[in-house]
């Protein structure tokens, strides 16, 4: 769209928002009414708070033990006392993880260091696990939350080395995974059997929104962010991207969404730095 037209319709132009803003906005749009949403630290928090303030009556759960938070001040991580404000339950991990396993979570917002074409995420090591190049923090609840929620949306930075044909280590399961104890590669549905609840439905990066063909388990491009060229996208991926179902451009943030992000959700600039 042309800039003047965009502005008339309330959408911000390319030079008026950052890629973090778009990530948060695109993620917030994945939330449906009345959903119970599990959110990790960082951009997931921006997304869920944006969705809430925008009027989506979702319930947010943080891993460290707060349920239905209504934070007034953006938490810097899920253990932050800011998570407790206005929540219905302040308890602990056992409450939250039991509910997760009981099937109560509709949507999970998570991050990841690297991802592969099947949506497998690695936050543990770069290189061979037994002789790693770099040690990362590890799974945290990423794998559990992703494996037991009905839908997962990953929010991450896209670089060639992070968008891989196959991750070095499957920390968090995608659509084709290894079935232990045998180690056989199987579809996620088979690995989870009767406990299958869903899986990764979207990966939102600074360049595009990806979704998954649940049968083949493979990622495809859904929408490309404004200002990103197809070949730029491919250059920043370690496997051939599937553009066959691309619906066009990602809808940019509205001024209202940006206002909420900067005035209400993160006025301190904990995660967001305004485009200068």
């Amino acid at each position, binding site marked *: 769209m042309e800039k003047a037209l965009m502005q008339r319709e309330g959408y911000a132009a390319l030079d008026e928002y950052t890629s973090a803003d778009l990530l948060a906005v695109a993620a917030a749009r994945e939330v449906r009414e009345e959903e119970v949403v599990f959110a990790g*630290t960082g951009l997931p928090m921006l997304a869920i708070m944006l969705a809430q303030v925008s009027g989506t009556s979702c319930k947010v759960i943080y*891993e*460290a*033990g*707060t349920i239905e938070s209504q934070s*007034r*001040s953006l938490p*810097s*991580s*899920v*253990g*932050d*006392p*800011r*998570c*407790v*404000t206005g929540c219905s339950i*302040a*308890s*602990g*991990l*056992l409450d939250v*993880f039991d509910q*997760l*396993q009981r099937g109560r979570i509709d949507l999970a917002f998570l991050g990841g260091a690297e991802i592969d074409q099947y949506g497998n995420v690695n936050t*543990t090591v770069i290189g061979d*696990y037994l002789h*790693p190049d*770099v*040690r*990362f*923090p*590890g*799974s*945290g*609840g990423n*794998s*559990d939350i992703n*494996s*037991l929620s009905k839908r997962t949306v990953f929010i991450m930075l896209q670089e060639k080395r992070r968008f891989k044909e196959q991750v070095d280590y*499957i*920390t*968090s*399961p995608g659509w084709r*995974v*290894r*079935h*232990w*104890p045998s*180690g056989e590669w*199987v579809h996620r549905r088979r*690995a*989870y*059997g*009767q*406990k299958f609840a869903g899986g990764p439905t979207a990966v939102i990066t600074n360049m595009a929104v990806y979704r998954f063909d649940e049968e083949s388990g493979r990622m495809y491009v859904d929408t490309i962010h404004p200002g990103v060229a197809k070949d730029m996208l491919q250059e920043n991926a370690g496997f051939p991207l599937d553009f066959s179902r691309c619906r066009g451009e990602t809808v940019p943030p509205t001024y209202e969404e940006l206002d909420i992000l900067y005035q209400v959700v993160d006025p*301190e*600039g904990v*995660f*967001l730095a305004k485009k200068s």
Partner: protein
Amino acid sequence: MQDKQCSLKEAVQMISNGSTLTFSGFTIWRRPMAVIFEMIRQGKNNLHLIEVNSGSHSEMLIGAGAVSIWESCWIGHELYGKVPYCLDRKMKSGDITAEDYSHQHILYRMQAGAAGIPYMPTWASRGTDILNPEYDMLGKAGLRDGQNPRIPRQKYAFVSDPFYGEGEMILVPAARPDVCIIHAQQAGEEGTVRVMGQTFSDAQAAKAADKVIVIAEEIVPESYLREEPDRNLLPSYLVDAVVEVPWGAYPTGVYGYYDVDGAFLREFASASKNEASLEAWFGEWVYGVESHEEFLDKLTVSHLMSLKANGYHKYSTRVKRGVK
């Protein structure tokens, strides 16, 4: 009634070299930091950490060479440092055996320990390399021979559900730490513990352990805590030592008391990138002070006041957290 109150130094002397430890808190929140610093000063070594999740406190212990086994699901400094440099180096040098679980797995390990059962079943994290039998690091190190009562014979087991035909469950072994060190907001003179806000996995950690050391921001009358017993975390008889240490969790944050000091953690994370800068950091902030009181004085009153929690909000409204 036996007197459980003692000094920080005495409490830390209760922790033997080689023992298996776990802690209160979550990542960079409500960690028993005063104990961590004193453990480093006392030169503790050969420790086996088993933690529902880990954080800056363990990076410090690992960096100081105090740890030989680390079992957990996560380690880092949250926003203030993504890479656990100390663990990374000690893994590469072979000084540490690191065993990875998922969060739910290790939480259930602690819960099994707290409940006196040898394992718990779970569905979490199927399909991941966390379950890859090639990655059983304590097994590879020959430590699953049943000799150490704190190390189970298998990392996992898989058993079919005989009741509802749901297939093969993952069984995770109980965690059985020697000592749990808890930082709490309040404790009574007899040892009753109150934790405010999120309780994280503190109840599981304390109940799984054989011994519990409690560091409290404040020691208050037992009778006060017993007026609202639904707000308390642990009964007196589970607690072996109580020490009053205001700001004892700094630089991690405590609900209702003070915020995380992000800049301080970022400085540590940055210093931890190599041995020389790490040694300098320890020299300044740990070995360079005699006591917790000296440490606080070095931080200055005005600095701590910027972190102090607002009485209503339970977090600091004065701390500078972001770019604004």
